[in-house]
């Protein structure tokens, strides 16, 4: 089963992506000549290693130990092999793992079902659909003024309600949800609250949510000041991080995805205000909407 990122690569590879930062080495944004063509420029290379090369160190030491009569047969000292660690490549997420399973669990828990408008991660595809509908669909807003639009969150129930409050009541009464369940706040609150700690806490949110045993959390249309409590399973990836990323080895444009995560105005009625220059129009969403890309500081993690 292929991860979305690989599927994305597939489309890109076949499209010969045109992008502004091609280079797979330098990080300067200055390399921004719009280069047409292929970022995949591997060529086979003969590697000549000089005498003092790092690769030769162990063998040299072994040789000199033998010369100095320090040679010992191998069965005495078993070396432990080191295994590459895995890292989440979602821009803004710096999680590192020692096994593939841990990585996949992380990814599946936090980076699936991400809303491309507001970058929240939802626990399931259905809840994502509901979220998008209730938060980012102007038609919904209009219709909701006249008819019951808010669906019950429990699958199979099918009931609809005029307001999210009504839905909440229903969930508590009929489906026995706890009253302190993290329900959505009303739309009214949304526009007012800002997110001051966006930059700082985005990482922490990711990590803290990671640790919590993921109670199925309802998607909220809330913008709270305490992202950690209000957001439950929703994770926000810092847009600023992504913007700071210079080139990536792969020209994933999504690194600077249109979604203006910073913007507090997530009302679907307002167009998202771009805060940085984007290469992709804001209304274009790629599949799961997860942001991809390497951050500049990735290199230090070795």
């Amino acid at each position, binding site marked *: 089963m292929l991860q979305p990122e690989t599927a994305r690569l597939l489309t890109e590879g076949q499209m010969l992506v045109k992008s502004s930062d091609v280079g797979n080495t330098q990080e300067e944004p200055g390399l921004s000549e719009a280069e047409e063509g292929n970022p995949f420029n591997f060529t086979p290379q003969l590697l000549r290693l000089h005498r003092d090369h790092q690769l030769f160190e162990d063998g040299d030491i072994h040789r*000199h130990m033998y010369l100095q*009569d320090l040679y010992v047969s191998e069965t005495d000292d078993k070396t432990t092999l080191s295994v590459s660690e895995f890292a989440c490549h979602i821009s803004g997420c710096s999680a590192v793992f020692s096994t593939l399973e841990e990585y996949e669990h992380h990814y599946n828990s936090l980076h699936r079902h991400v809303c491309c408008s507001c970058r929240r991660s939802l626990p399931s595809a259905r809840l994502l659909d509901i979220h998008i509908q209730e938060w980012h669909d102007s038609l919904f807003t209009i219709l909701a003024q006249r008819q019951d639009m808010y669906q019950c969150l429990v699958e199979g129930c099918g009931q609809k309600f005029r307001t999210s409050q009504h839905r909440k009541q229903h969930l508590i009464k009929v489906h026995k949800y706890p009253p302190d369940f993290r329900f959505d706040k009303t739309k009214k609150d949304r526009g007012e609250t800002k997110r001051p700690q966006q930059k700082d806490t985005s990482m922490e949110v990711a990590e803290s949510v990671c640790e919590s045993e993921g109670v199925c959390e309802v998607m909220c249309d809330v913008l709270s000041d305490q992202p950690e409590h209000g957001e439950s399973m929703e994770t926000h990836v810092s847009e600023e991080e992504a913007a700071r990323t210079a080139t990536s080895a792969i020209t994933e444009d999504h690194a600077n995805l249109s979604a203006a995560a910073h913007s507090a105005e997530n009302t679907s009625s307002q167009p998202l205000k771009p805060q940085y220059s984007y290469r992709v129009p804001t209304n274009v969403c790629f599949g799961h909407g997860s942001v991809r890309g390497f951050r500049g500081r990735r290199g230090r993690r070795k």
Partner: protein
Amino acid sequence: MWRLNKVRHKAGRQADSLEELRLKRRQQEKDLRQARRDRQLVSKRLLLNEDEDQSEVTMDADSGAQHVVTLFHKLQHSGPEKEVHLKALSKALRDPSAQLTFIKQENSMHLLVGLLTGSNATCRLQAVRCLHELSHSPHTNIAPACLPATPYLLTYLSNQSTKFTELCLYTLGNLCPESDVVQEKLLAQGIIPALANCIENQRHNLAVVEAAGFTLSQLLQAKDGGGKIIPMVLASSLPSHLLSVLTPDQNFGLAPAIECAWCLHYLTCSMQDNRVLLAHGALSRCSSTLMSLGGAVAEGNKEEGMELLICPLLRCVGNLLSSCPAEDLSSQVADVSIVVTLCALLQAYMQTQTALARESAWVLNNLTAHSSAFCSALLTFNLVPGLIQLLPFSQGINIMILRVLANIAHKKKEYCVQLTHTGLLSGLCATLKMADKDIVTLSMDVLFMLVVSSPQVAEEL
């Protein structure tokens, strides 16, 4: 002559516990690594008498020094007991402070040289023994003091007494790395032709060949490197002699081949252009030797110390390949099944000697970079699944293996399809998620080549 068993017996006899030994060894290893980082990695060898042991208790410093002075005086004046005194002196000179004391005595070296070149054969032997002890000294000002003896040592290389020749050779070998001054003198005195003649005339005497190989390897490690020494060596008859020694002798063991292989390594890695060595057939010789050794390893006959020979051979092949023009490759490395050997070495040494595994992978890269024949061989011999299994391992292993796989994919579209059938895609699924940026980049390159190669592959994804 070094027998690897000797070391273990020595270790067993000592009072130190196994744990202490291990600690000591680890510390020595650390020191060696630091020395290499400082480009000061130099080793000397001490040839022991058959009956003795390096750990024999010597007298304490002061009495040792005094003893040396006494012996020196006796030697200056005595007649027939010279042999006895000389022998005692050689034992006394094992101690570093005694060495210093001896050198400081006026005319001490003059005396030794006189005895070295005198008419008494036993005295000559003991005198060279004394010089040998001095050459092994940790003090840096002792080696220059031995310089007056070197022209004679070189002359004696053509003599027929094994023990004597060995001592001369190891003494010279210990002196070589000391300083530029010493090297200049030795070169001027004709050390290179002397070594060439020695190996040629004593080809049957493997103990001497080993000693000569050691001495040459010391000379070749000199810092000037490509400057003067290496061109002179390449111009001599030494390369062909070195190549002829590579096949290990059943009875004698690996030691001479080990020394000669290291000499070849120092030659190949210092030159940008290895045409001379290629013309001598070095690549084909080294690769065929590697194949026979690899075959033994694959069968489970890991003779002790084999990696000491495999390592320099791998390096020679690797660097010679980088100098070999693509069109000559098939004539130099005739047998494509060398890829089987290399993969076998990779698997065999992954756990115990990861550095060797890494070097094998490097050689595979150089083989496959510009040759379809070797790429195709990897596919035909079904070696790719084994390589894919090694992709989780870091420290240079997975990145090099990815290069090899990329080399294969780069050649032809059919190879890409074949690669896909080996299960490479699932291997890539893992490497794409690794933290190391270079690995991810390379994985993307491979994946791209696979995807672009044919619509079938894209569909399989």
